[in-house]
């Protein structure tokens, strides 16, 4: 049975200022949604709030993952329930190798978390290496990548690929991609997009958060939402994204004012 991620009437404050003002959206596994919006519309606030960043205060509303409100849980528990955030700016953790980090995350999320498979995975170093190498290949990444320190000295493209690599390993039910296309050149964007496309399927719901339409040339969303001033103001199909690309956000802002 396909599960859903439902955001209901979400109001969020950051340092006293209200950023999200009653946001609603529902995503099912197997669907790809895109939220587009101009700067300052609250896109990153949404992404971080979904994952449970402590500086965002949820004033009102619910985030229902398969009908359970996950607001009560910390980030690590949300991850175990199958939620994933690909960060816009992944943080460096010097001295910790990607391998070590990925294995720890894999054990936390897959072995002890949401993994449906009743058979508990054996995660010896060898077995994990094998699995990891498959994923690296898929994302056209070199094996030596995992010897580097987490996001330490990574280029923009490497950071984003690393986020998708983590997504591939942790196999979430719902993935939120926060500005994954920013800072990528065309080749990197293509590889990252291909990776996302390979991962999408009936068991994954994707929420792409983006300013530009660029990434949507490679990943075709089923639903496109426009977010302005902390709310979804318009929803539609892929054509909506194209119109935004051509005409910008002004026409929507006018439309709202006229209403």
């Amino acid at each position: 049975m396909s599960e859903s991620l439902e955001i209901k009437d979400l109001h969020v404050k950051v340092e006293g200022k209200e950023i999200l003002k009653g946001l609603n959206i529902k995503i099912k596994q197997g669907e790809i949604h895109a939220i587009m919006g101009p700067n300052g519309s609250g896109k990153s606030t949404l992404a971080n709030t979904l994952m449970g960043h402590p500086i965002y205060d949820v004033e009102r509303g619910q985030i229902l993952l398969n009908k359970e409100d996950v607001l009560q849980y910390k980030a690590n528990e949300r991850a175990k329930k199958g939620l994933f955030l690909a960060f816009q700016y992944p943080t460096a953790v010097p001295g910790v190798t990607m391998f070590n980090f990925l294995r720890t995350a894999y054990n936390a999320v897959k072995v002890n978390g949401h993994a449906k498979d009743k058979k508990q995975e054996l995660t010896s170093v060898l077995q994990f290496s094998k699995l990891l190498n498959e994923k690296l290949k898929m994302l056209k990444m070199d094996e030596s990548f995992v010897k580097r320190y987490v996001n330490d000295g990574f280029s923009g493209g490497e950071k984003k690929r690393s986020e998708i690599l983590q997504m591939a390993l942790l196999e979430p039910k719902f993935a939120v991609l926060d500005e994954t296309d920013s800072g990528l050149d065309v080749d990197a964007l293509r590889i990252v997009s291909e990776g996302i496309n390979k991962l999408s399927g009936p068991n994954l719901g994707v929420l792409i958060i983006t300013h530009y339409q660029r990434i949507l040339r490679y990943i075709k969303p089923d639903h496109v939402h426009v977010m302005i001033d902390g709310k979804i103001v318009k929803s539609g199909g892929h054509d909506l994204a194209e119109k935004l690309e051509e005409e910008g956000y002004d026409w929507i802002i006018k439309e709202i004012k006229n209403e």
Partner: protein
Amino acid sequence: MNKNQQGILQINADYATKYGFNVPENYVFKSRKGLSREIVEKISEMKNEPKWMTDFRLRSLDIFMKKSMPKWGANLDTINFDDIYYYLKPTEEKAKSWEDLPEEIKNTFDRLGIPEAERKFLGGVGAQYESENLYHSIREDLAKKGVIFLGMDDGLKEYPEIVKKYFGTIVPPEDNKFAALNSAVWSGGSFVLVPKGVKVDVPLQAYFRINAANMGQFERTLIIAEENSFVHYTEGCFTKGTPIKTISGLKNIEDIKEGDIVLTHTNSYKKVYKIQKRKHDGVMCTINYFGDTRHEIKITGDHPILSVRRTKTEYKNNEWETEWVESKNLEKGDYVAIPIDRTIISQDGRFFSVKLSRGRHTPKVIEFKIDTDKDFFRLVGYYMAEGSIIKENYLTFTFNKNEKAFIEDVKELLEKFFGKAPLENEEYKNGISLVLCSTLAARLFKQEFGSGAKNKSLPKWFMLEAPEKQVEFIKAYWRGDGSFINKKYSWGKKRMFRINTISEVLAEQTRDLLLRLNIFASINVWNKKEPRSNSFAIYIGGSHLHNFADIVSHNINGSANNAGKLLLKQELMSYTQITDKYAFVPIKDIKREIVKNVEVYNFSVEDDESYIAHGIAVHNCTAPVYTTDSLHSAVVEIIALPGSRVRYTTIQNWSPNVYNLVTKRAYAYENATVEWVDCNIGSKITSKYPSVFLVGKGAKGEILSIAFAGKGQHQDAGGKAVHLAPNTQSTITSKSISKDGGRTTYRGLLKVYPGCKNVKSNVRCDALILDDKSASDTIPYMEINEKDVSIGHEASVGKISDEQLFYLMSRGLNEAEAMAMIVRGFIEPISKELPMEFALELNRLIELEMEGSVG
């Protein structure tokens, strides 16, 4: 009993309740408390020292008495020099071989894993217990090359001229009050001499341990590296309680650190709990948990247990956040934690020292190398199930005639490892026995794996090997001693795997190996009347059935067509949970009663065997700790002659009542290199600044220092580089972490004398402060009296950022795990320089510090 003796006993009784394992004191000689001329003379007399040393000691004593306490650094006002025993002599004679050591001392060091360490690729091992070196050994080939590795006292006896030439020249007694103290009362330590051009490619290792209360340990180490030689000397320093986990890798360290009683129980440590008696008034809890029918845990009500509270009334929790809960507050259904040691130390080959001859004074010892590969692990599995040793000369396996495949497998394995085919004999009742006539094989197996079904057990290295190899052991062991049970009951079907043994240790170890493979096994005991032995059954069922079936290649679903992964409905319901660190099992039953004046942990001898309450993680942090202090004040002198290289690695985890005031200094002559790697965890106050005096052209010095200060601790550490010659280089890297109100100070000196041109130096000190209660200072002195130099200095003080924490937590790590990961990364530049086992030890100690706070 005179008053003085009573006093000593008093302290000892007191001490035992506060710490986990300290061994009853049984000393040949124990000095009075306090320091005087008579005591110094007595020490020198007992050691039979030459007059110059006696004079040196007395002169040092005068200096000590005259010198004031250091006016800088950590606050040492609380040291009471009159309340310390300056000399304890544990045995009359020094041991020639490990076996000759007194049982108590051997046990203590066994717990530290030292004999094991020796069997590995170490060049030599020294062990110090209280004041005296008890044991020093060095690999034969190194001894042949002229490498000397002795206790300092023996060094003085055997090489008086060399010692006289160098002793006290690098760190003279005038240097500081504690160097003077050490010079007056020193005892033990190591004497190392590496001759010209000799490279010692394996570390020489020393262990130190303080057992008695109010004890001062004043070891003295002198290392001389002659021209173009190389040596790596490592030392591990521990106080009681801390390192039990290294015994067999069975148990979790945090509990042991506080010297907890329950967890330290396994068959091999009977002595530990015999001495741990105390009177208790208040709540006593009796706990039974699922998965182990052997014993109930009796524990005082205020004793915290690592637990997960039940959040769901049925089935099992979703969340596995652990907390420390006082046992009286636990409820039926809450989970207790069985620690899983996932350390992996895998080696393709290992050397084993096997004693061959019997009954002679100097037994012949053979170093025998075994490829410790999957095949060997399988052979051990067969041995555990079907093997025995006859007359120490024959390694024998007994099978049923029908077990042809296994018989062939064992034959091939024996041939592979011992180059010899076994004899095959027909036995009574369709038995076949394979007999390998090899004293070497027989003794090797007896030594490593025990002989006699009741005494078989696995050594520590085996427990820490790669899980891929351990799978092979399980496979073979199950083939021999296991079965698959498939029974129909009125309520349904029950299927499970079973292995039977009469060795309780082996049952336990098999359970632990399976936990490393993420398989939970329960242990059931059948108590039998003497003379029959109790029997232990290891059961694997429920959701773990398939994983185990995969390992032993057993089709559990009957026909081959139906070999799919079918689990019966009730088998999907597993009441246990395995995480990276623990297996959680629910409490079956908990009883509380108010008791008065009950002796806690008072086992009768028979109960001794059965009362093994270990298995679950228990903490003892709330007990009032440490009213008495111990003093560790060592001096280390290194002379690195031209072209030589000396590396000195220390990892210390003193208990929080130890003042650790150590002077370490090296002279590096022309083109010589000296490296200090210094990791300080624990202690009450540490003052330690390893230093390098670069006295010859082109000499290099490197100092790496890690300090971790927890609650009530002050780590005042750093390093000194003094450039006395041109073209010399130095680097100092310091990483400090403070937590729970702990305080770290980086204190360093970089000094360049005039005329020392082209000196290069880089100093980097980073501090990480984990909470608002903790503090860190940086005091870098620089005296640069030459212009033509290149000096770099960087310092940083940081906190763990919310963004880092959030990032790691979004990948499933809980807060403590995320913090520990960041801290591990922080010290990585240094920990990567450590030998692997030290690095593992350091990581574990830090993890423990990170999650160990109670409350």
